[in-house]
């Protein structure tokens, strides 16, 4: 039990206290500037009422859902599954080459990849425009699409590796029998591979959705702009907290985010248990 002590202290200070503190701050009008900075007052659920009346919040929420569906579910999970499945029966060399490139995109520090992408998407000199022969300022004309493609590119490796492991674990004999019985590739996928990797699929969807939902990195690409068009919830909280120093409101939004995370996780885990 003594061995648990340091961890318990750490987790209490740096995880549990901040979480409880967020709950508390959400109920005050605490800020770094003005009168409220000197003596923050308890304001009950006022912040929540304000947030829930704020059209900017709903806009941000909508953008976050689009971001999660586009980049996590379609861009990472679906594309990752297709890649893992396509290469599951291919020679090791080709497969590991593709995997290494996808993993590199995942390993390179986020400050570097966001710069690489802003250079890649640049209107005048960006590589993408040089290839397709255009002058589009992608980050300005298609900001949401840009961060969705970026995050799919960035995070696909996790799904590719996880699904690769899942597909490799499907007993070879089952697939053999299906093939002899004349099942098409699609039928093999639907009736054998997907049911066998159900656990992995749910775990993967849960983790990458949560990660994308709480991801701050798009800020480095668009700064939430232009004109708030990519202001997903993490960026929204950041702006409220560290640009306007409105800690009460920011904490209320953060609490709502935590709640959404937990409800979502609960639903996925329960569905996983039902089978």
């Amino acid at each position: 039990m003594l061995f648990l002590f340091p961890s318990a202290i750490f987790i209490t200070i740096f995880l549990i206290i901040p979480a409880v503190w967020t709950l508390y701050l959400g109920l005050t009008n605490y800020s770094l500037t003005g009168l409220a900075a000197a003596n923050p007052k308890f304001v009950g659920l006022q912040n929540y009422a304000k947030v829930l009346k704020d059209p900017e919040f709903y806009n941000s929420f909508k953008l976050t859902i689009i971001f999660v569906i586009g980049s996590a579910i379609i861009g990472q999970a679906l594309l990752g599954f297709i890649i893992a499945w396509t290469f599951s029966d291919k020679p090791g060399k080709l497969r590991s080459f593709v995997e290494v490139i996808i993993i590199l995109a995942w390993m390179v520090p986020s400050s570097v990849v966001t710069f690489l992408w802003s250079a890649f998407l640049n209107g005048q000199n960006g590589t993408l425009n040089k290839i397709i022969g255009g002058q589009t300022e992608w980050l300005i004309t298609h900001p949401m699409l840009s961060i969705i493609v970026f995050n799919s590119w960035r995070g696909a490796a996790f799904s590719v590796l996880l699904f690769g492991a899942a597909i490799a674990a499907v007993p070879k004999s089952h697939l053999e029998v299906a093939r002899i019985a004349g099942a098409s590739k699609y039928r093999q996928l639907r009736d054998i591979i997907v049911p066998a990797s159900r656990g992995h699929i749910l775990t993967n969807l849960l983790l990458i959705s949560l990660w994308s939902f709480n991801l701050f990195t798009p800020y480095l690409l668009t700064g939430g702009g232009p004109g708030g068009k990519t202001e997903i919830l993490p960026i929204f909280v950041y702006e409220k907290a560290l640009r306007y120093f409105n800690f009460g409101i920011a904490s209320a939004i953060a609490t709502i985010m935590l709640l959404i995370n937990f409800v979502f996780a609960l639903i996925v885990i329960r569905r996983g248990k039902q089978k």
Partner: protein
Amino acid sequence: MNKTRKRKQKWTLKRTGGRASFWMFTFLIIAFFSTPLLWLVFAPFDLTPRLNIKLPTLSFNNFHEMSQNPYAIHSLLNSLLFSVGTGLLVICVGAPASYALSRVKFVGRDLFLYILLLFSSVVTGTAAMVPIFLLCLNLGLINTFYGVILVMGGGLLPAAIFILKDFTDSTPKSYEESARIFGASSFQILRNIVVPIIRPGLAVIFVWAFVGAWGDFLVPFILIRAPERSPAAVLMYSFYTEGGQAMLTTLAAFALLYTVPVIVMYLYVNKRYGFRFYGGIKG
């Protein structure tokens, strides 16, 4: 006769069609994932780097220019300090906890671990930014190395314990039992028996924490104000001229130097232990 030939023809056609589309798909995947990265291969060695990818006029001028920047090398050292500190912290605090959790059974232990894991992946993000900032402000940890290391370590700890527990679960108990008969203390058992056995796990966790801390932008961005204490992740965003143009020469060289350690570590882990998923993360 004719019929079978036709069928055969159709079959080969379908097969070559499938093969062509497979190669098309492979090409697209490779192009999509590698093109944005190629800049990092060419631009650092280009005499006149541009935003687009082009074959370089070979030169090491960019590295020279980068070394003139007062903060560049320093920030890489800061990153190293943060990463090593976080890695060591996570191992030293996480290993005993994972050992204890794998030996002591209590009701709802696995559920408890799951909730903790979920909790950490949620809380360490933007949601807890405000209290983390205030916590460090009150503890006097703003602008300090400790602050960053403690916050990053705290965030990584639950996942580290979760993965390490898998390793400690697989160490044979008989070793410990015989050691205990000879009067070894729990701490001695941990240090002399468990740690040597789970060393690969510790190495993986160290590298994982190192890479996580090395790339982390948000925590130092919030907690560090002084440029001479900024890590590379934050400094990347200061290489701009007064006109707001990116200083591509310095940036290219710096980005490469900042990226290489992570890739070297990945290659090392991949070669030594194989890059795969450990039990805990599977469904």
